[in-house]
């Protein structure tokens, strides 16, 4: 269970996250949707305690991230950017994280196997493709066998086979009763992966609903999304200009 209560964060004069409150429940994949710049990554960073909120708070299983006893055993996170040193092997990267939270060393090889990196475990991670880097990030998230998973744009850089792999992985993790919170700007992908949705625009909550409910009133989830976020997008191509060109 992830709870955001009145979460607020400004950067200079820009309000990135604006009094955001929502709950992410266990047992299903919850998609986190919003246009670029709507505050999805900032919200994820606030939940993980990487950035500080100016107001409000985020709790995981009732506690703030900083209060967790063995954080990686409770929460697994994949953030948008790479989070490993290019000179270190995938195995060493995971071994360092494992030992920090008293996770058995055998678990490192298990997750490497699970994400399909067993054959590249000893290679310097700097030589990895974007997709392999994402897989290493997923391995790090799964390392502590956590009940809560946060993934920021996990399908970025993955080939079609990788996209399908992530989708099935997330659904199976949720089916095991875990809380799975996954951000994306790819609506079609979310329609396939998620059951629940949290939609934000300009840092504000636009909808906390299910995929079925949101698409019910519109032709498709995409149409529903545009109807919902239409007023909040920071920029939009001018249809008249496009037609003229």
């Amino acid at each position: 269970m992830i709870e955001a209560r009145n979460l607020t964060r400004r950067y200079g004069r820009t309000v990135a996250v604006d009094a955001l409150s929502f709950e992410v429940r266990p047992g299903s994949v919850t998609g986190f949707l919003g246009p670029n710049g709507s505050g999805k990554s900032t919200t994820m960073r606030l939940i993980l305690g990487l950035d500080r909120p100016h107001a409000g708070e985020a709790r995981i299983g009732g506690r703030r991230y900083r209060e967790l006893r063995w954080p990686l055993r409770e929460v697994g996170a994949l953030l948008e950017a790479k989070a490993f040193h290019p000179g270190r092997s995938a195995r060493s990267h995971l071994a360092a994280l494992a030992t920090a939270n008293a996770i058995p060393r055998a678990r490192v090889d298990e997750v490497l196997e699970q994400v399909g990196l067993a054959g590249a475990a000893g290679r310097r991670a700097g030589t990895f493709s974007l997709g392999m880097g994402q897989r290493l990030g997923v391995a790090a998230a799964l390392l502590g066998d956590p009940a809560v998973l946060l993934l920021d744009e996990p399908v970025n850089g993955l080939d079609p086979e990788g996209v399908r792999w992530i989708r099935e992985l997330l659904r199976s993790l949720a089916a095991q009763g875990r809380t799975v919170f996954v951000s994306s700007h790819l609506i079609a992908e979310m329609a396939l992966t998620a059951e629940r949705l949290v939609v934000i625009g300009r840092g504000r909550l636009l909808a906390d609903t299910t995929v079925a409910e949101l698409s019910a009133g519109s032709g498709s989830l995409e149409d529903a999304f545009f109807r919902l976020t239409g007023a909040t997008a920071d920029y939009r191509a001018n249809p008249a200009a496009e037609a003229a060109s």
Partner: protein
Amino acid sequence: MTAPSGRYGLAQAVRMEWIKLRSLRSTWWTLLVTAAGTVGIGVAVGLNTRDASGDVTNNALAGVVPGLLLTGVLGVLSMTGEYSSGTIRATLAAIPRRPLVLLAKAVVFGFVTLLVGEAASFTAFLAVRATLRHGVAAPALGDPGVLRAVAVTGAGFCLIGLLGLGLGAIVRHSAAAVGVLVAGVYVGAQAFGILAHGVAAYMPILIVENSLSTTRPVTCGTGAASCPDFLSAGAGLGVLALYAALALVAGGWLLARRDA
């Protein structure tokens, strides 16, 4: 997988930092070059030592000054590399109590650079002893002040390395932090050496050269009036330790307060 009782602490953070430090090839190359440079330069200076009345031990330790730069830079990079690569987010996700991360880095890096520094310092001294010529008598570790000079010089590597680590935590960008380190340790020493003699004695590199690696108080001969009063070995070591501690405390304070 059942979680053990208790909570992550310094022991877990230290183990993590040890794996991180040793799993980068650049760590070992840098330390090897540091030690080889320290010994090589010492031997070269020793071979050209003709004045038997000078401080031959100090000459043998002449390679420490350039060697220190590498440990300082390695210290900087062990922090800034986390930011440039994004590893810092994974690190802080595992150990959210941030000062603990910097403390663990200081423990691991301080221990490794102390060992390497002592090895480099003693090896340089013994190598110079074996290669002196021009009839210069080789100093022995039992001679007055010699063991102390060699030992505290080795500790100098560790303290400059920790200073670099602290600066890395404060500045966060590799190039800028290395710039601050070089400016503070090397360039500043030259400027103050010319402009303000009283302050010069407190410049890190002059402490290493004139307080740590000497067996007797440095005098300036006939130009004594223009020579600063250099610190004793103990005071010099204390001042260097203070610099390292200040940089680490400031770095830890900022690490805990800033966005990662």
